[in-house]
């Protein structure tokens, strides 16, 4: 009797806890099918009414045509992935899905966006990509933040012949293998490294900073290692010494590394590690006296998430940050419209570059399917190769493709299905608590809105 009563009590408690979990999980409700299905259902209603008069023998075809077109979205939504990046991308992709469905869906059918959590791990990315393709039946995939995930997932999409548009994965090999299914709108790692080094050289030669030695703090991933190697090579060519320290993603305690960095006495520090590891390093470096207010520091791009940045790096003023995409002042209508919706959804004043990329990755897939007139993989791929899409990042094309391959065009294979012109600027926080929208663009001079503040120069 006592045991039965206890069991019942425990079961009741469990039920209450489950209900509480469901009630307290607004984020979970926004991800994946429910958010995408609701506007899809609303938009599907007028379409259904219009088709009510179709002949009976077309009933089956009608049913099939009302089935949503499923598109997958990859994002790191839990550690050790860069959650700040993943959540921004998730919100951006949801905005894209809402816009597409509000405009009538794709090919007259509602669009269902299925967002999955890669955790920033290649094995998890592979598993969720397989799930998207084989269980959910997606016709294409967008998003993607971590290069290591991109390197793994491209194999899955190639094996299953499903087109994918990577939003924020930079590793050159993702496109250099020239898989027909793989497209990318993020910049190449090598190109980003080139811009970073150009900025450092400009700081030295034009802005008058004393930069002879740079310390790179990178991560042991498919993004971090090649980025550090390429940056070191280019710095070497410019006569600047570089010392690289590597950490695992999600590293918390940098005290030992920071002492070694201090011992190197660098003139500048570049943080290539992503996610909260970059926040941890930047603030712990500040605690140790070699932070952004002591030594010129090129902080990781997650520093563009202003709220999280200032919460985690309160001494982060004077950080330089690399930003992909046009400066806010040069936003086109698409970007402005996206920014307004992003502000409304997230409360943030600025949209990060990976948010813009994630948004464009879904919209470009939708446009490709429309232009292809079909969800067939080959048709979508062909449409993507010929596409001219005007998005938040600007006008996106993939000029190096099956009709204009790299050897014919005289370029490196890394440019295969690669958006060739993502704008990259360097901005600087010049006021404590500043929003990333209000940062000063310091490089390149074409886009500059002010001069850099160079600390530690005596």
């Amino acid at each position, binding site marked *: 009797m006592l045991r039965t009563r206890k069991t019942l009590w425990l079961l009741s408690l469990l039920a209450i806890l489950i209900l509480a979990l469901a009630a307290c999980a607004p984020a979970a409700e926004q991800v994946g099918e429910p958010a995408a299905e609701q506007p899809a259902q609303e938009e599907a209603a007028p379409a259904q009414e219009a088709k009510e008069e179709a002949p009976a023998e077309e009933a089956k075809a009608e049913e099939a045509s009302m089935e949503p077109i499923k598109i997958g979205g990859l994002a790191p939504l839990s550690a050790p992935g860069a959650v700040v990046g993943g959540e921004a991308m998730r919100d951006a992709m949801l905005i894209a899905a809402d816009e597409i469905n509000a405009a009538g869906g794709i090919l007259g059918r509602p669009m269902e966006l299925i967002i999955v959590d890669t955790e920033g791990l290649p094995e998890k990315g592979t598993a969720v990509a397989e799930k998207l393709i084989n269980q959910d039946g997606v016709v294409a995939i967008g998003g993607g933040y971590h290069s290591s995930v991109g390197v793994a997932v491209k194999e899955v999409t190639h094996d299953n012949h499903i087109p994918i548009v990577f939003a924020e994965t930079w590793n050159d090999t993702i496109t250099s293998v020239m898989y027909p299914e793989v497209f990318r709108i993020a910049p190449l790692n090598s190109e980003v490294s080139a811009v970073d080094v150009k900025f450092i050289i400009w700081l030295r030669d034009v802005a008058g900073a004393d930069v002879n030695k740079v310390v790179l703090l990178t991560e042991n991933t498919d993004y971090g290692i090649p980025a550090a190697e390429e940056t070191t090579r280019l710095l070497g060519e410019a006569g600047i010494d570089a010392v690289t320290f590597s950490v695992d993603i999600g590293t918390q305690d940098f005290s030992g590394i920071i002492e*070694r960095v201090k011992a190197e006495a660098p003139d500048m520090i570049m943080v290539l590690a992503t996610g909260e590891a970059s926040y941890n390093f930047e603030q712990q470096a500040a605690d140790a006296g070699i932070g952004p207010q002591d030594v010129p520091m090129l902080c990781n791009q997650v520093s563009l998430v202003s709220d999280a940045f200032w919460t985690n790096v309160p001494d982060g003023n004077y950080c330089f940050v690399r930003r992909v995409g046009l400066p806010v002042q040069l936003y086109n209508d698409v970007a402005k419209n996206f920014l307004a919706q992003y502000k409304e959804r997230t409360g943030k004043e600025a949209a990060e570059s990976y948010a813009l990329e994630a948004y464009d990755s879904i919209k470009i897939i939708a446009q490709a399917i429309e232009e292809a007139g079909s969800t067939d993989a080959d048709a979508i791929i062909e449409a993507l190769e010929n596409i001219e899409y005007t998005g938040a990042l600007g006008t996106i094309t993939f000029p190096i493709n099956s009709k204009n391959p790299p050897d014919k065009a005289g370029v490196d294979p890394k440019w295969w299905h690669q958006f060739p012109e993502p704008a990259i600027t360097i901005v600087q926080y010049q006021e404590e608590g500043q929003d990333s929208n209000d940062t000063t663009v310091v490089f390149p001079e074409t886009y500059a809105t002010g001069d850099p503040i160079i600390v530690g120069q005596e």
Partner: protein
Amino acid sequence: MENPALFWRVILWLLFWGAVGGVVTPRIYARRDKDISQAGLAGAAIGAALGPIGLIPLWIRTPKLTGRLIVLAGLMVIGIFVAAFALADPNNLCVANGGFVVSQLTNGIVIGIIYGLMALGLTLIFSILGVVSFAHGEFYMIGGMVAYFLSVSPFYKELRKGAEALAENTGGILAFVNYVFPPLILLLSACIVTFVIGVIFERLFLREMNQGKVERPGEYAILVTFGLAFFLQYFTQALTSANPVKAQRFWDFPRVKIPEESGDILKMSAGNITVLREISIPNPRFTAALIAVVMLGILMWFLYRTWTGKALRAVSQDRQAAAVTGINPDNMNTLAFGMGAMLAGLSGASLVQVFSWLPQVGIPAAARSFVIIVLGGMGSLPGAFIGGLIVGLVEAAGTGCIPDTTRAAAYIPAYGMIILTLVLLLKPTGLFGREL
């Protein structure tokens, strides 16, 4: 490394004679009917330190193996290792820069103290309940989350403002109390929340284990604490999102006027102390270590000077005998689990001002705690603390001294594991563990 061959030869020498000593010494002692509990460890340490010159007299005379002997031999091994490293890589920072070494050691001690506090909670639970709590990392995470979210609440901001105003207007001890009080609320809240969760969980899910109602209590405990871990982690993520957060430092260093001439000896700012221009101690870490030391003192006083603490220790030694003397073992179990959770929560609350905090932040901390308690000896409170210090120092030394900058930090999780493996090979119960 300039002369890696020399370094690796010395390592091989240490490993070879250490292995010989570790394997042969217990057999010789057993044959002579002597205590073999320390024979493996002592034999390995003496063999590695002195080679055959030390082992042969040891085997012939089979003296009593005291802790002092083992420690001395161990220090000699460390000395040989350091000397070999210094000769093999004379330009290494750890060899050429004394200030750097002291800095790294200081960092290691500071972080080791904090690791030790968290591991204390885990070992306390194990020593009383005989359960390894796989939710320990989540209590650590929750402690940090409670401290952070309370610190950004309007209530706390008002409280802090008021207390600081009071501190400025009063003097002496009252000013100190007003200044110190608000962050203590954060720590206390974290302790209360984690203690309560721990107590509720133990009463609901673990009590039946000790009442003989569970067939396989060991496996049951693992599964149920795992379940709690997942629940706490994802419940917190649903409540707070997975964005990293961080509390502002609790207290600034005092504004002490330091003469300019002593700039090289001591430099002080609100967020940092620099001693002798080399040893830099950031405020948040210093505060966290201080909290850990104070908490350790309180815990030791509680366990050794109060009736309840003695009752807890009695239950850990012999449950039935404790029951006979009038101690309720079930209540002690509940108290121990709650206290263990509370210690983890306090560690988290003190570290949320040091690290960025996520719902997943407890996973590496828990893994480290398991290493520490096994290294120190499961169920041993001093062992957990010493184990924490050892892991902190080894991680600091490894990160600071490994020549390859691309690998030094990447191998951090491995350093503690290497020491753990060596200790377990030689002393399976850990450094201070009880013999079975």
